């Protein structure tokens, strides 16, 4: 009942306030229907002198976005799917897609003119928007890149040169947590290890009980290496880990790094903007990257890499070297050869979109968090299981343990179950396999990571709840019910 009241408040009170007023509804342009060439001549109000150059949250008294408007904005999502995995690939509303296509058309119409007269202005505007979003000091600190994966390569490639050019010694270390993202671990292997560095992996316990356990493991690892005389050149720390997903206490971890003599700290905030609070002055890291297409409604793909100016600014380069090599990463990144830069250009439009919500992006974050915790608890209760971390270590994603009887006993099983849920039940949710600790008797082995974003509805989570209940009721196990290839046995 309590959850119904919350849902009512969130969805209906705002609406009731509006229903007797004349509302100027901003209809999203669904212009990405397939259309004939002639319709490309229609230009939306793409306005180079756009008013949105900064964006303290402007609560609009009379026209917050309504439920049905939100639905319309995401009507391109497959309606047959309970899409509770915003964390993996994000989402983008029709309004932003429309803006994206207008930028694309501008390029196609006269690319030379676009390059000489529009592109760099547009990217600078996006960079300024990001600077405000994340409370950076200077726009020079902000480079726009494709995704966090690219940002990681940029920082690590610089480290590779440091080894080769004698700035670092063989055996100098990078410290990461065991739960670091797989692609990041590969990047460390490709650049840091290959160049002669050493990797310290801090053990990570899941389920997590508190931030303190993480901080103390981390400090212990650093102290140990310091004692052995090893120089730690870089700490790479997730802001929100991927699988299993928890919010790490990055501000405190950065402090520990400073206290224990780590040269530089890089926060991998792939999920960051639009999910957790991202404040460069607060967090205090040297490098911070976040995807804007996960939780900040940008289309695939756009991210930023923040590089603190005030520290000794090691020379970073974009690996795709083009005409602007040597002019600083931000300038290098804004031209890396001919490609479609339009995802980098819609960031100001996204702010326009988020400001249609009560509280802007802050309001969205808060409501996402409240809702995902609520849904997580609902599922845990329904299945007789538990959450993977305390609610205050979650943002807009939460881990919910799956019933043990499903028999998830490997990463393979987790993937097969995920496929089964997608194909048989129309539920999209990533599953995490947790190796049981040896003292555990019961197999607490599978967790689902549910996300909550503005397009989600309570029915999405009921659908998931019911799917799992069905599987349990049917006596389903990964081993018996999903054959070798993850296909249901007859």
């Amino acid at each position, binding site marked *: 009942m309590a959850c119904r009241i919350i849902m009512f408040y969130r969805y209906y009170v705002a609406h009731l306030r509006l229903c007797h007023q004349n509302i100027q509804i901003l209809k999203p342009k669904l212009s990405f229907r397939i259309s004939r060439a002639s319709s490309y001549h229609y230009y939306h109000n793409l306005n180079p002198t756009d008013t949105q150059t900064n964006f303290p949250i402007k609560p609009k008294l009379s026209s917050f976005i309504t439920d049905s408007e939100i639905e319309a904005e995401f009507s391109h999502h497959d309606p047959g799917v309970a899409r509770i995995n915003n964390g993996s690939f994000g989402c983008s509303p029709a309004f932003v897609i429309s803006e994206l296509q207008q930028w694309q058309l501008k390029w196609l119409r006269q690319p030379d003119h676009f390059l000489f007269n529009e592109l760099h202005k547009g990217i600078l505007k996006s960079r300024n928007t990001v600077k405000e979003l994340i409370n950076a000091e200077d726009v020079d600190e902000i480079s726009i890149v494709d995704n966090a*994966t690219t940002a990681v*390569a940029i920082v690590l490639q610089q480290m590779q040169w440091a080894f080769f050019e004698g700035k670092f010694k063989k055996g100098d270390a990078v410290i990461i947590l065991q739960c670091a993202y797989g692609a990041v671990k590969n990047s460390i292997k490709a650049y840091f290890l290959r160049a002669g560095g050493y990797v310290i992996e801090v053990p990570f316990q899941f389920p997590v009980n508190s931030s303190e356990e993480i901080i103390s493991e981390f400090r212990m690892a650093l102290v140990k290496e310091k004692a052995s005389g090893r120089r730690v050149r870089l700490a790479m720390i997730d802001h929100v880990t991927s699988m299993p997903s928890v919010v790490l206490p990055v501000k405190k971890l950065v402090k520990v790094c400073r206290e224990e003599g780590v040269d530089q700290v890089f926060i991998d905030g792939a999920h960051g903007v639009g999910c957790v609070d991202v404040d460069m002055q607060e967090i205090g890291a040297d490098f911070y990257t976040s995807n804007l297409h996960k939780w900040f409604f940008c289309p695939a793909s756009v991210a930023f890499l923040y590089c603190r100016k005030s520290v000794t600014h090691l020379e970073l380069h974009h690996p795709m070297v083009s005409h602007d090599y040597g002019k600083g990463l931000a300038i290098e990144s804004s031209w890396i050869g*001919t490609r479609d830069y339009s995802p980098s250009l819609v960031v100001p439009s996204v702010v326009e979109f988020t400001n249609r919500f009560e509280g802007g992006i802050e309001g969205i974050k808060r409501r996402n968090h409240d809702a995902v915790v609520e849904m997580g608890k609902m599922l845990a209760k329904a299945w007789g299981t538990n959450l993977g971390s305390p609610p205050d270590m979650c943002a807009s994603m939460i881990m919910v343990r799956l019933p043990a009887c499903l028999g998830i006993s490997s990463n393979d099983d987790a993937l097969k179950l995920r496929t089964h849920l997608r194909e048989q039940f129309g539920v999209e949710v990533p599953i995490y396999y947790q190796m049981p600790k040896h003292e555990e008797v019961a197999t607490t082995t599978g967790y689902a990571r549910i996300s909550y974003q503005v397009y989600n509805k309570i029915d999405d989570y009921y659908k998931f709840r019911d799917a799992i209940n069905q599987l349990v009721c049917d006596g389903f196990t990964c081993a018996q019910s999903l054959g070798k290839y993850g296909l249901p046995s007859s």
Partner: protein
Amino acid sequence: MASSPDHNHTLNGDSNTHASKKPKLSFITPSEIAAEFSHHDPTVARINNGSFGSCPDSVLQAQRRWQLKYLSQPDHFYFNHLQAGILHSRTLIRDLINADHVDEVSIVDNATTAAAIVLQQAAWGFSESKFEQGDAVVMLHYAYGAVKKSIEAYVTRAGGHVIEVPLPFPLNSNDEIVTEFKKALEKGKANGRRVRLAVIDHITSMPCVVIPVKELVKICREEGVDQVFVDAAHSIGCTEVDMKDIGADYYTSNLHKWLFCPPSIAFLYCRKSPKGVELHHPVVSHEYGNGLAIESAWIGTRDYSPQLVVPAVLDFVNRFEGGIEGIKKRNHETVVEMGQMLAKAWGTHLGCPPEMCASMVMIGLPACLGISSEKDTLKLRTHLREKFAVEVPIYFRPPKNGEVESLTGYCRISHQVYNKVDDYYKFRDAINQLVSDGFTCALLSN
């Protein structure tokens, strides 16, 4: 709005699973071509296809369908569609370029990325002591600016010695290129050095000429150059692209310049060889170590749709008589004809013989325009764009010592299927107007 991913005929059971021409009884008509490119600014004489290429509406539609599929259910797309789509594109490219094996074909964003991949590998060569400090990399003086920077960023920085092959311009024959190239290789081998890599343009950018790459590759093999990388940013859809014939170790070309793909997509061909140097994509993700082609097919979340429309592009080119071969042939003949028309109208000359051109040609601009620096060329280009609605890049050719009456400014005109003879008349008349007005670049403010 489509409530479920659109079923796209180009996704499965595609009629064009290989690139051979299918002569159709009804070829595309001029008005259909005009419709396909109706998104181009109609007021501009767009005679610079070489810089940014072009993409017809039917291919943009195919791209939108892929984008929509992704937006509709990205997880499903990632697990069930993306890899198959990229493999399909790679297979079609393999056939287009006469490569032996699809493993040899990786899809990347653009030639700039391909260059970074090859050169990063050279940097590791130096830092892992496979190469010695001072070993050489040879490139053409007319190598693309971004590639020169890439060589600086990876080779010079790692301790390699860079040798530039000077080339004359205007050019009269391939022999001039071959002679200079041989001389440069000699320099590279001086003092017991090895030439580790030769970077050779297939078609230089500015000034634009077709380089006799097959011959140069042969010379590299004879002279003991370790590896040859052909930077053919323009080539596919513009000139002959046959991997077995050319014989290079690495070859890259953009598909969005002359093969009607949307920005951006290129391929990097890596000849399979027992030496087997392992290349990596600089953006490292889950597939690291599985080979460049597989690495490149997932470099984090992004829009892969430009890489997926190659089947739709082949459908498009096969609507033309002779398919892509017919398009290339007609582009070449027309651009030469237009070039000669302009040279005659202005009393100047072409920058090289027609057989050293593909679908672009350099034409001297009247000397009285007073182009005396690279800055002037940019100013003049802007002036042509803003005052005459003509889009054409200009090249500054510094006069050599002792030269009398040489032309210092050349334009590079392109011809693609959407161009009309009026585009070139418009340019001819613009220049004639400037000449008759007594215009000089010095008059243009900074």
